């Protein structure tokens, strides 16, 4: 084992030393070196994998790159998940980490670089495929970058730090991590440029790859001496530790470094959320301050923590209130006041007062047709009905011919007519004639009124004055011309003034019997009149009642 390890380490070392262009041409020597190196790395990691199907990586010449890669993959998958679990555990309970790693911040910078290298390797790893040489290439690249980083050179053709910062800023804006970063930035470079890297790593840290650790392993191995003072016995050999204590300290340390890296970041993020400006502002670039923060956090009671959270929330809400509202909250907004096409992104919903038009499905048509068929079978249609209007002309009187011989002779008929003409015999007019006369009279009057209304130039008919006899002028006056001075009273004869019979008595002269007689006669007359009236009314009643029934 020792021989292989040295051989493997040497192979790895030699791989790193080769120039990159050498990798472009396939050379069997490089391939062999790569195989030994991978085998070495595999065995290094084997203790950590709980169930690894292979004791060692089978890298004979017969195996091609794809098979070797599969073996590595088989081993590394469970490893990754276990590491992730660990990291989550530590994330939930940072205090445990504190107990485990009392290492201060001094190691922080180195591990960050290391982590950065790991990140780079990861990125490349994700893209590249099965070439063994790639693994080593990545490590080389990472190492080179670290060397450059140490030199302080930021402009690298593969990696532009400022670009990465910008990109991460944008991404963090999407995930809402901007505040955290701003807070962290405010610390004034406490964590330096590596802050963004840390946050970026925080997302990626869970995907710790085998190579990450490998890189760390190797690089950390080189820096071991500088950090020797800060490593304590208690970090490794405490009772709470869950790791296997027989693991190599080098490896353990690196694993812990990675873990510590995570927790510090989580710590920082926690601090950033809670205390943010207060605590961080006070801190300097000192290890002690970090530990101070940790202790402060420990000393806060639940109530105080609650208060801190509330304060943070209040500040956030106040900040939002001070800002201008979003356009969706601004009441009436025209197109000029909102960003272009922003209404398309919003989910607008309002109540519409209109019934939506009916969708004509098969069922609807079926129902209508059923209705139609029902109506047809009933014969019940809503057609236009022809209305019989009133006849405009009066119906012609049909004269009926009486077939029977008249009883009266012809001579008699002529005699009757002559008598009627001369007026000797006043025949009682028949009932219908009377009615006809009345009707014609009424109609004449009506026509007169209508004519008056409807003609623009109405000329009323000349009034035919009836000959009427003035009764209060005595007969003699007709023949003689009375002098003007004669009054009316003188004109009339007494008989013409008063026509009465018998003794005329005044009221005062009447005797009792006379008075009684007069009263009796008055009553008789009144009774007679009433009787007539009553006789009329019942007749009318019965008539109309009969009509009502007929109707």
């Amino acid at each position, binding site marked *: 084992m020792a021989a292989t390890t040295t051989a493997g380490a040497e192979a790895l070392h030699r791989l790193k030393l080769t120039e990159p262009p050498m990798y472009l041409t396939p050379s069997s020597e490089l391939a062999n070196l790569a195989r030994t190196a991978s085998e070495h790395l595999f065995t290094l990691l084997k203790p950590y994998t709980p169930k690894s199907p292979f004791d060692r990586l089978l890298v004979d010449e017969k195996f091609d790159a794809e098979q070797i890669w599969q073996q590595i993959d088989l081993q590394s998958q469970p490893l990754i998940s276990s590491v992730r679990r660990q990291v989550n555990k530590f994330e939930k309970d940072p205090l445990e980490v504190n107990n485990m790693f009392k290492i201060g911040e001094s190691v922080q910078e180195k591990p960050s670089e290391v982590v950065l290298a790991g990140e780079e390797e990861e990125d490349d790893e994700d893209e590249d495929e099965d070439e063994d040489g790639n693994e080593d290439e990545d490590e080389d690249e990472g190492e080179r970058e670290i060397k450059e980083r140490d030199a302080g050179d930021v402009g690298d053709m593969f990696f532009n730090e400022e670009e990465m910062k910008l990109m991460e800023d944008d991404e963090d804006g999407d995930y809402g991590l901007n505040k955290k970063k701003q807070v962290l930035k405010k610390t004034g470079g406490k964590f330096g440029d590596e802050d963004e890297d840390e946050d970026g790593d925080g997302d990626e840290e869970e995907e710790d790859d085998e190579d990450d650790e490998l890189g760390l392993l190797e690089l950390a191995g080189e820096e071991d001496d500088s950090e020797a003072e800060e490593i304590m016995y208690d970090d490794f050999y405490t009772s709470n530790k869950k790791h296997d204590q027989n693991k190599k300290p080098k490896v353990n340390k690196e694993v812990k470094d990675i873990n510590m890296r995570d927790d510090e970041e989580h710590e920082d993020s926690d601090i950033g959320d809670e205390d943010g400006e207060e605590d961080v502002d006070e801190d300097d670039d000192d290890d002690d301050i970090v530990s101070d923060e940790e202790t402060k956090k420990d000393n806060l009671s639940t109530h105080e923590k609650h208060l801190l959270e509330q304060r943070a929330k209040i500040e956030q809400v106040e900040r939002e209130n001070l800002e201008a509202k979003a356009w969706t909250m601004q009441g009436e907004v025209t197109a000029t006041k909102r960003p272009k096409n922003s209404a398309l992104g919003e989910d607008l919903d309002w109540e519409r007062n209109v019934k939506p038009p009916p969708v004509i499905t098969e069922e609807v048509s079926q129902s*209508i047709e059923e*209705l139609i068929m029902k109506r047809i079978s009933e014969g019940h249609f809503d057609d236009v009905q*022809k209305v019989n209007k009133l006849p405009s002309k009066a119906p012609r009187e049909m004269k009926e011919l009486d077939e029977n011989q008249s009883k009266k002779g012809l001579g008699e008929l002529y005699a009757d007519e002559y008598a009627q003409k001369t007026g000797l015999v006043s025949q009682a007019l028949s009932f219908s004639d009377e009615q006809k006369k009345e009707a014609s009279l009424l109609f004449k009057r009506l026509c007169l009124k209508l004519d008056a209304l409807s003609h623009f130039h109405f000329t009323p008919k000349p009034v035919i004055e009836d000959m009427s006899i003035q009764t209060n002028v005595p007969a003699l006056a007709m023949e003689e011309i009375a002098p003007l001075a004669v009054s009316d009273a003188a004109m009339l004869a007494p008989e013409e003034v008063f026509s009465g019979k018998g003794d005329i008595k005044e009221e005062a002269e009447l005797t009792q019997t006379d008075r009684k007689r007069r009263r009796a006669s008055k009553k008789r007359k009144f009774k007679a009149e009433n009787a007539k009236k009553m006789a009329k009314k019942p007749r009318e009643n019965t008539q109309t009642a009969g009509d009502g029934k007929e109707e």
Partner: protein
Amino acid sequence: MLRRNVRLRREYLYRKSLEGKERLLYEKKRKIKQALEEGKPIPTELRNEDAALRQEIDLEDERTAVPRSTIDDEYANATERDPKILLTTSHDPSAPLKQFVKELKFVFPNSQRMNRGGQVISEIVETCRSHDFTDLILVHEHRGVPDNIIISHLPYGPTAYFQILNVVTRHDNKDKKEMGTVSEAYPHLILNNFSTKMGERTATILKHLFPVPKPDSKRIITFANQSDYISFRHHVYRQSGGPKSIDLKEVGPRFELRLYQVKLGTVDQLEAQNEWVLPSFMNTSKKQKILGE
């Protein structure tokens, strides 16, 4: 003729103003008649007028007994003559609209189609009046799809504005051979579910576009109202076999109508009074059942 129209209009307005009083009188007469029939004494409030009213009751017959409502006065004499309809479109119609109007010409018996050209509405109404048309129908469109129909009854009659939806024309459905020609017999009408007053009014407007059919006519036109959307269907049926076996064959276009305005005047009278307008701005307009149910 103008003067006659003006006089008729004035008479109509006068009668409308008298309507209230006439209704009261009618009510009184009705009460008296009822009392007489039942043999009960006449109600006390009518004793004074009893004699005069009784005379009038005697002279009335069925037609005059019922008080005339002025609402359908425009159609009072409509049944005396067959309706004569003129169909036109809006300005510059597209080809699908022209097809649709052609189809409508077959739907309404006694109808004529006229090209719109550049005529103004007042000109069209003048020609209609002079040629003794009874109804004028205008069809409007939106990008080829007919979307609006205006039915105007001509001697000063009401104008109904409908929106057309879900049009399926004969041209869309089938080719010519399958369709055959449309029967031109006077059709029977089915007007279903027009139960409110406004529904009755719409029903008379639609009804009087068609003449009086023969009882054995095999052509049926249906206006079925469902929640204020009137479905128009045109069928021809035959009774094959015994009773109760009726085969319906759908013929002609099919569309939905939605009434949104009725004006008490012809189309060219812009200042005519609105008899009814669809209230779309009210909060309860969703719940309203204007034409039926």
